[in-house]
């Protein structure tokens, strides 16, 4: 391997890579740790924003200095994920609300005054998973 990148580019890439991996780890830990489904949907957002963008930018920096020209193909991944992850998440939330109502769980309609236990235990009546 003939690494010809200047040391500050290596340091920047290392910082971005570690930041992105830690963000992905924290997000996945949230998926495992949070109690109700409606709290769990929000955890992968950390992976799809900070994790994806920092690793993408690390790839851009490293490959640009390696090839000697600007290499921004990887930004396509970040843009694509930023466009598609909210779509999936909104679909999933709708499906979860629909299925919870089919099971007979009381889920407040939009516009209802928020109940007290929304802040601590999620929507009223949704049983904590684990």
């Amino acid at each position: 391997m003939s690494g010809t990148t200047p040391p500050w580019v290596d340091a920047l890439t290392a910082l971005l890579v570690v930041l992105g991996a830690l963000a992905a780890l924290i997000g996945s830990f949230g998926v495992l740790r949070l109690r109700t489904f409606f709290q769990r949907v929000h955890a992968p957002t950390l992976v799809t924003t900070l994790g994806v963008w920092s690793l993408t930018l690390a790839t851009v920096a490293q490959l640009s200095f390696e090839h000697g020209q600007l290499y921004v193909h990887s930004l396509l991944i970040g843009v694509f994920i930023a466009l598609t992850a909210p779509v999936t998440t909104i679909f999933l939330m709708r499906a979860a609300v629909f299925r919870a109502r089919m099971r007979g769980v009381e889920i407040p309609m939009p516009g209802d005054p928020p109940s007290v236990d929304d802040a601590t235990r999620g929507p009223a009546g949704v049983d904590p998973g684990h």
Partner: protein
Amino acid sequence: MSPLLSWALAFALGCLALAMALSLARMILGPRAEDRVVAFDCLYMNTMLVVLTLGLIYRSSSYFEAALLIALFGFVGSTAMAKFLLRGEVIE
């Protein structure tokens, strides 16, 4: 490649492997189907990040296309599963 960068990449691979294990655990013990789909979402995101990290380790720019394909097919699969949970059919 400087030793700092190689150690950082190894640390990142370890973190991402642990993240994949955590989402896989939620996928196995998620009480309902929605939880499993969320965990699958998280799992393929982590897989894509692993592929990007491997591209940095092996200094090859062709790993990026694999990561893009993983993102694309993961999005299609998750959306199809969410649609199925919502309607009982993927394409009506």
